[in-house]
Structure formats: C-alpha cells, structure tokens
C-alpha cells in the first residue's frame, strides 16, 4: 500500500534523501558537542587559563555553526519533501478522480473524497515528515548515545541494557492497547460530525418540529461517546511520559550510586566526575530517542488508515477506456438501442434496463415518460457513454458508442443532468463550460433559446453576475434554464434533457420547446419529463415502466392504445379547466 503512495514522491526524492542525510550530520555534531563541553568543564576545573577556554569556545562555536547549518538544511529539506509529497498525492488523486467513469464516481461519495484529499493527506504528510526526520534521527541518536556511554562509562553503561528493553516494552504495550481504541473512536467521531452536518442542513426541519431539545440530547449522547473513548485512549497514552521518566530516574540513581562507588574506589583513575556527568547526559539522550521513536510508530499507525484510503483512490481504475483507434466524427444524431440490458454494478441483483430496442432518427424529438424508478435516466445515460450497456449495443450516428473517442462523443451528445449544478463564478464562466471559445453573441443566443436571456438581462451585472457555489443565489427555474443554455452552447447533434425543466413554469417550458423546434430542428432532442404537457408535442413518446419500454407512439396514438398513458394524462388535466 505504501508502495503505491511512494510513487507520488517523484521530484521530491532529492529532499527526501537529503533530509535524513543532513539529519545524520546534525546528530553527529549534537553528540560531539557534549563531549567537548565535558572536556571544557574538566579544563576549567583543572584551572586552565582563558586562552584554553577561548580555544574550546572557538571549537564549540564552529560546531554550533555546523549544527545550525545542517539543522537549517535538514529542516528545509524535510518541509519541502513532506509538503511536496502531500502536494503530489493530492494532485495524483484529484487527477485520477477526473478520469473516473460514472460507475467509479458512484462508488465514492463526494464527502469521502473530500476527506481523503484533505485530512488523510495531511495525516500522511505529518507521518512522512516524522519518518524522514525522526525515524533516522532517533535510532542514530540512540546508537550514538549508547556507544558514547560505553566509551565514557565502560561497564557502568551496562545499566542501559536494563532500561532500554524495559522502556521499549512499556511503550509497545501502550501503543498496542491504545491503537484499537483510536480506530474505534474515529468512527464515532465521524458519526458525531455527521449529526452536526445534518443539523446545519436541516435546521428548518429541526426548528419547525421544535426538536432543538431532542437534537441537543442526541448530540450530548454522541459527544459523550466520543469523550469516553478518547479519554480511555488518552489515559493509556498518558502513561508514556511517566514510564520514560521512571526509566530515566532509575538510570540516574543507579549511575550515581555505582558511579560514585567507582570514582571513590578507583580514586578517579578509571572513572572521573566529568565522565559521570556525560554518562548521565547520554542516558537522557538514549531514552528520549526511544520515546521519539515510539511517537513515530504512533504517527505511522494513525496514518496507516489514511494511507489505505488514499491508495484506494489511486488504485481505482476507470471502468471506461477510450478505444485504440477512436472515431472522432459523429455522423448524425441518430440513436439505436438493440437488445440493450443494463445494471449499475456486477453485484446489483436487478437489471436497471432490460431488452431495450429503440431507434431514434436524426433530428427527431423524443419524449420519455415514466414513474419514479422506471429507469428513464438509466436509458439516456447510455447514449453519451456515461455507462456501458451490460448487454446489447448502443449506437450513435450508426456506430457503436464504444468506437468513439469519449470526449468527441460527449461533445456531440449534450446532456442536461437531473441534479444539475452550476459552479461558483460568473454566468459567462458557467456558460463557457459548453464552449470555452463562445462569443458573447453565441452565449446570448443560447440563453435566448433556453429563455434565460430575459432574467439575466435584469440582473445588475447581466452576464457577469456572480453565481454562488451550487447556484444558491438564483432560483431553481433560473438554474435549470442556465444549465440548458450551457448544454446548447456545445451545438450538439443530440440534446438530452433529463427532467431539466421541472422547476420552470409551464409557460416558459412551452417557450423553450418551441424555440428548440424553430431554431435547432436538426438536433435530435430527447426529453425526460414528469408532465405530459412537456412531451405531448414530441414526434414520439416513449413510455417506460420498471426498466422496460411499455409503449411508443405519438400523443394521440398513446392516448388511444395505452391505458397508463391515458391515466397519467387525465390525472394531470383532471380539474376540467381546459376549454
């Protein structure tokens, strides 16, 4: 798994290698400095002159200079390597998501992708910084300190041999006990956040049902859950620092006792006070390094989950691929379904579409009607190859959709999705999604067809009006009309409207349809609608039910031969207001 991630290091390999190298130098110097200061102290004690102190001072100064240099270099390299790695991870993930097919997109909820791209990458970044900085530093420090301890203290350093395994075991147990709790607590934390999110979005529901107290109670329970789990985990982690202190103190006491004994009994010949002080310094260094090392393990275990989630996205392969020798030219706007069946995933039990045979001529207007769940949307999504049919063939312009270059096909088959979206930016910027090179006149033309020009003209900033994220500052009907205009700017051979005028009033809806008929007669138009009125003037109407086509014909034909159609029509026009 980490292998997949490390591919994203790329241009940051250099700082990633340099950082530990600089860190090593830093460590070496840091370990030499106490050695020199010990000498200095001994010299002062021996009553040396200022010139000797000056000599040592200069040496120390030089060492400090080097230490600073390497510290700075390693700090910069670490920051660059870790931030750069994170940047590449985000970039690779985001770019990979852009190659996802609809099927891939369905597998990852947007909120989960957001977390993967932000929080998860940040976790990995922190862990990576720890790895290249501390994971080298601590073992080096440890080894160096132990070696120095043996040089300085000889047999006395054997005391370390007891302290190190003891501390190691203690830290290991702490991590092992705390980690499963952490894993659990993150799930509870997610649940807590979900409940907050629901309250923010549904505040009107909460308030109108006067459920504030109920929600507070619910929240209190969830928050208490999180608190209890976190407290349990942190209480275990709280042992790590006292355990380390415990080892350190035992070390100190033993070193002092045996050290003092050795000094006195050997008359300071084999072991002197200076050595004793350095031994204590090294003992401190050893245990701190061990402690840092354990922190690295904690970081890695926490980041492991995140790394796993990132790898999932990076490994996901798009289920749709461009053919080897793609066709770029779509001949005309004809569409043919021959024996098409379709299901959303291999695991789905039910076919969303079954045995569809439908042939649409270029330039024809087709209306599609059907109840909720009749797979109208599934049917039209196969035309721009948003999904591949499970069985059978879908042809556009006389050629199977899989033969085309995907972009070329989608540029000719323009689809207005059911849950459509505008993006933050000006109206013009949004319209240019349809055609980046569209002139102002072309945009106005498309908006006139979609009956959007009038209301845009009423905005103080006209076409430069800023649309908020999700288009919250314009009405639903206006949004839908802009979405249609955006799709029209592609000048497609086939235009698909998936319930795209549901928020538009009937009068405007009629105007849009008239404009389509008058101004883009050669474009094949496929319109999914709830209202019979929206489709009754189509060349043919396709009536769908439970993933199959029930009836096809003109309005009059269907009124005559389809009972369902007649029922729907009458239910919508029953009040007898027609004259």
């Amino acid at each position: 798994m980490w292998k997949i991630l490390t591919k994203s290091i790329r241009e940051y390999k250099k700082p990633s290698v340099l950082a530990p190298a600089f860190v090593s130098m830093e460590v070496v110097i840091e370990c030499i400095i106490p050695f020199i200061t010990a000498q200095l102290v001994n010299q002062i004690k021996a009553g040396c002159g200022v010139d000797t102190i000056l000599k040592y001072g200069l040496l120390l100064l030089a060492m400090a200079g080097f230490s600073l240099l390497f510290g700075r270099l390693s700090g910069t390299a670490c920051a660059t390597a870790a931030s750069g790695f994170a940047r590449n991870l985000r970039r690779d993930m985001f770019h990979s998501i852009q190659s996802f097919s609809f099927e891939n997109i369905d597998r990852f909820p947007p909120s989960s992708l957001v977390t993967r791209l932000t929080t998860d990458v940040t976790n990995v970044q922190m862990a990576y910084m720890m790895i290249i900085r501390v994971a080298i530093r601590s073992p080096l420090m440890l080894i160096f300190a132990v070696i120095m301890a043996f040089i300085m203290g000889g047999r006395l350093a054997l005391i370390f041999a007891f302290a190190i395994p003891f501390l190691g075991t203690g830290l290991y147990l702490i991590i092992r006990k705390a980690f499963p709790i952490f894993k659990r607590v993150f799930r509870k934390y997610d649940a807590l956040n979900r409940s907050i999110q629901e309250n923010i979005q549904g505040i009107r529901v909460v308030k109108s049902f006067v459920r504030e107290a109920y929600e507070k109670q619910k929240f209190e329970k969830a928050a208490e859950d999180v608190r209890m789990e976190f407290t349990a985990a942190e209480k275990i982690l709280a042992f790590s620092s006292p355990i380390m202190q415990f080892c350190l103190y035992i070390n100190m006491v033993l070193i002092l006792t045996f050290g003092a004994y050795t000094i006195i009994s050997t008359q300071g010949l084999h072991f002197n006070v200076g050595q004793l002080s350095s031994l204590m310094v090294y003992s401190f260094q050893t245990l701190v390094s061990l402690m840092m090392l354990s922190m690295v393990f904690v970081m890695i275990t926490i980041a492991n989950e995140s790394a796993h989630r990132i790898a999932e996205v990076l490994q996901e392969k798009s289920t749709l691929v461009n053919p080897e020798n793609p066709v770029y030219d779509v001949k005309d706007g004809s569409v043919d379904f021959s024996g098409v069946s379709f299901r959303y995933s291999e695991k789905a039990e039910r076919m969303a579409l079954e045995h569809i045979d439908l042939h649409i001529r270029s330039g024809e207007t087709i209306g599609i009607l059907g109840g909720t769940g009749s797979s109208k949307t599934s049917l039209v999504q196969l035309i721009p190859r948003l999904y591949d049919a499970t069985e059978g063939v879908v042809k556009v312009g006389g050629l199977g959709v899989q033969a085309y270059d995907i972009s070329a096909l989608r540029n000719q088959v323009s689809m207005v999705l059911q849950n459509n979206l505008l993006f933050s930016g000006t109206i013009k910027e949004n319209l240019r999604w349809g055609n980046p090179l569209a002139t102002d006149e072309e945009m106005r033309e498309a908006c006139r067809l979609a009956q959007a020009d009038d209301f845009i003209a009423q905005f103080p900033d006209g076409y430069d009006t800023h649309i908020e994220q999700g288009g919250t500052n314009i009405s639903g009907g206006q949004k839908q009309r802009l979405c249609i205009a955006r799709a029209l700017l592609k000048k497609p051979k086939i235009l698909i409207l998936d319930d795209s005028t549901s928020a538009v009033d009937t009068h405007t809806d009629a105007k849009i349809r008239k404009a389509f008929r008058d101004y883009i007669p050669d474009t094949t138009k496929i319109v999914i609608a709830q209202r019979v009125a929206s489709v009754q003037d189509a060349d043919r109407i396709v009536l769908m039910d439970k993933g199959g086509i029930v009836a096809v014909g003109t309005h009059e034909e269907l009124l005559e031969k389809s009972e369902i159609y007649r029922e729907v029509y009458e239910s919508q026009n029953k009040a007898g207001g027609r004259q």
Partner: protein
Amino acid sequence: MKRGMYKKGTAKRLLKTLFQFHPVALPLITLCIVFTAAVSSMPSIFMQNIIAVLEQNQGGDWAHVGSQILRLVSILAVLYMVSLASSLVYNRAMAVITQASLKKMREKLFNKMEGLPVRYFDTHPHGDIMSHYTNDIDTLRQFISQSMPQLLISAITILTLFSIMIYYSVWMAGVVLGGVAFMLLVIRKVGGNSAKYFIRQQRSLGKAEGYIEEMMNGQKVIKVFCHEEETKAGFDAVNDDLFHNSEQANTFANILAPILMNIGNLIYVAVAMAGGIFLLTKAHNLSISGLVFSISVVVPFLNITRQFCGNINQVSQQLNAVIMGLAGADRIFAVLDEASEEDAGHIMLVNSKEENGALVECAERTELWAWKEPLPDGTARYTRLAGDVRLREVNFHYAEDKSVLHHITLFAEPGQKVAFVGATGAGKTTITNLLNRFYDIADGEISYDGININKIKKSDLRRAIGLVLQDTNLFTGTVIDNIRYGRLDATDAECETAAKLAGAHDFITRLPEGYRTLLLSNGSNLSQGQRQLIAIARAAVADPPVMILDEATSSIDTHTEAIVQRGMDDLMKGRTVFVIAHRLSTVQNSDVIMVLERGEIIERGSHAHLIEEKGKYYQLYTGAFELE
C-alpha cells in the same frame, strides 16, 4: 507578530471558560503541575551536591564517603518518586480534563447553534459552520492538552533555574539573560513567520477544501462537459498555493529548534568565557549565596545554563499551537457571541378538553388544542386552536435595501386550502418563512386564531404549523425513526398510517428492510421523490392544525402526487393548508389561489374564478396548453 491572528483578550476568555468548565479540577491540576515542575528542578540541586561531595573526596575511602553519598542518593530517589507520582497524576488528569473540556465546548457550541435564528444559517456557508466543530475544536485539543501544561511547567522551571542562577552569581546570570534576549528576538522573527504561514496554510487548506467539495459534488457535470482538464488546472492552482504555505510554515517551524539550540551553545560558550575571566581576574561576585568566584560556582552554573536554554526552546515549540489554538478559540467565541433567536411570546399551546362548555387545560393528549394566555391575575384565558391564519398589510425584506413582500393581506380560514403561485423569487417561500417566524416581519401583522403570532411562544407556534420543504432533510437512522421525528411518541402503527397517507408505504415495504432500513447521509440511497414522500409522512404523523407544503411534491411523478394529495386532503379535512407549487395541477383544487408577482398578490380566487378573470393565472394556465 500576533496582530490579526486572533483578538485581544481571547486567551483570558478561553482560560476563564476552561476554569468555569472545571472549577475544582483545573485549579487542582494546576497545583499539581506547579508541584511537579518545582519538584523536577530539585534533583539537579542534589546532583550538584553529590558531585561536589565526590570531588572533595576523590581520593577518599568508600567506607567513609559512601554513607554520605547513599544518603543523598536516597533523598534524590524519594524526590524522583514524588515527582513521578505527581507527573503520572497530572498526565492522566489532563487527558480526562482535555476531553471533558472539548466535550463541553462542543456542547456549548451545538446548544448555541440550535438556538441561532434561521437567518444565521442562510447567511453563513455550511462548511464554515462545520469547521468550528472540526478544525477549531481540534486546535483547542492541542492547546489544552499540550501547550497549557507545557508552558506552565517551562515557566516554573525557568523561574526556578533563574533563582538558582542568581543564587550562584548575578553577573553570570546577566550574561545568560543577554543571550536569552537574543533568543527572544529570534523567536519573534522566525516563530512569528512560522505562525503567520501556519495560519495561511490553514486558510489555503480551507480554500482547497471548498474547491474540492464543489468539484466532487459536480463530478458528473464535469464528465458530461468533458471539463476534466480545466478542473485539474483549477485544482493545481489551489494545490500549489497550499503547498507553498505548508512548505514555508513547516520550514520555519523546523529550523526554529536548531537555531535556538545553537544560540544556546553560544550562550554556553559565552558563560564559560565569562566564568574563566572572572576566575582569572578574581572579580568580585555578587550573589544571594555570597559565594566567591570559584570552580564550584562556574561549573554548576554551566549546567544550569544548558537547562535554561533548553526550556526556552521548549516554550518556543508550543508557539504555533498556542497561536492556532487562540485563533480557533476566537472563531468559536464569535459564534457563541451571535445573538440567539429572540422569543418574547408568552401564549402557549396546551392540551385541553371541554367541560361544561368551557375549555379546560389537561395533561393528556386530547386532539383538542387550546392557546393558553396567562393573565396577570394568575388565571388564564383559553382560545380554541382552529387554524385561522391572517396576514394584514405585511411588509418584509431580508436585507435593508431589498424589499421582498409588500402589503400582503390574506385570510385563511380553518378548513381552507390556500395556494401560492408565481415565478420563483416572487416571495412565495418568504411568506412561509414568516408564518412560523423563521424571520420576523418589518411591518403589519400576522395572526393565528386572532392572536398576533409575536405573542405566541415560538416553539408552540411552530408546533401548531407543519412544514414540508422542497429540499428534504432526513436524519441518519431508520425510515421509521425519520417518520417518528414528526411526533416522538407516535407508535409504529401510527407511523405506518402516516406513511400510507403520504403514499410512501408502498416503496418503503419494498426497501430491503422495510421500515427498519437505515438511511445514510440524508437518505442518499433513496430518490429525491422518495425522500419527499418520507418528509410528507413525517409531517403527517405530527398531525398539525396548519400545514405548509412548499414545493413538497416537486420531484414526485404526477400519478403518485395524486395519491399523496388524496391522503393529505383526508388528513387535513377541516384544517388549514398552504400549498406552494409551480405545477398548476398541484394547486388547482385549492379553495383560494394567490398569484404573487414581485412580492405582491396580484390575483386571488378559486381556479374557476381566476380562469374567468383571464388575468395572469389564466395566462399561466393556458400557456401550458397553447401548443396543442
């Protein structure tokens, strides 16, 4: 360096809040930390003593010196034990306190949020509100659990060490102070830069998050328009910005420690030099102890210098956490300082029954509701709840400069179905926002059963009005839990009946686990139409005397809609219903239809009446059929 990162006084307020959360525990822990810090600095004094003894007796005999040393070592061991015990206590107590504080903070925030007016949610991006709970609380975690105790310990250690320094020699302490002043300058410069970039990093992370969120939600639109490359380019820009700030922030944070450490080395050298010169020149020492310059002053002093600098370095490591924590606290406090929804109403909704022709309040649910107006003399006046809603000359605007509704006057009598028709933006939804006082009117009067709604307690007013909105919001839980949200004491059978009324029963029984099917993230496993049906069932189970259906059936096919309408007509027989819809078939059978245009009612009457009048409604209606 702190300017603009957080408000003045935030630190004080945060500490005050924390102490209010734990008025007993926190002072105790503070004492415990002070004690730990004080005890922790004692061993170094004993160590000096032991070394001093050793030096004096280097040529001595263990039998003679041994007992003296062992005595000192055992005192040291005892001190260690005490410090260890107190450190264990405060570490564990701190873990408990941190989580308890975060929980209380979350609750405080949530309770505040539930009381904020709807306007707040309409004017603040939801992602921003959310980040108070995630990012801001997170910065507090670091602040409380690590920075606070660490700063306290370091401060005490620094003070203790400084006292020891002047105990030995004021002159040499002066040398150290000079060095420390230099350190502070460096911390100010480098640490300030680091904090600055950390805040910027946070900001660009927020920006990246916003971009990612928008694009992930619009991923299908991106595919349909083959807009992948442009989207990638847009992302690369925010990503590079984030990288830059993150790199800078971490660089400054990483290099601060080595810089300070080596300044520490410099100070060490300087002190050694100074000590050497003082020794050589036999300078006069100024100290508390009255010791004269000697090796036994200079050598311990050098050790203390090292510790002193180390502690300052530790303080500097907390700098980023402190500044980010305070900035987070600042944002949380800003929410807590928002004005809550005001409610000056005193009239309540109570259960009642009829006794001798008069209304009497009772505890059990009777289906007969009454408005209770407490009178000054201790008695109360009861008015039977009927569902008579009147608007008189209502004017309203969301923002000062833009008027939304003008001179709206309308009556809805109990049992009537009142519909609002009009282009989006005409003010239909606004009227419903006013009825249950999500927003308050600027001018005019709205009355419910003859009572000005300003006099009714908001919670009771809202309980008397059912609301179904176009954008349905369901909660994590089972289907039946979601329906029961309308009335918490509803039985399973009552919920099912409501679902049948709403036409939702059929599809619910076809779900994998029927009414026990778990709904995730706002019911994303259902279609928009199915979500609307559940929302209607939820309102139906509440069984309110007045119901507002705001585009509640917009995503439901007309066949199902007819079923829903029949059910709702049954339920609301004799009660008042407000319907907002753009689909004329939805509103045709209403008693009164109001046609709204630019915040004014331009036509009103029944369907037949409006058709006859041949006005705007007639145009709308016939517009749909002109192409026949």
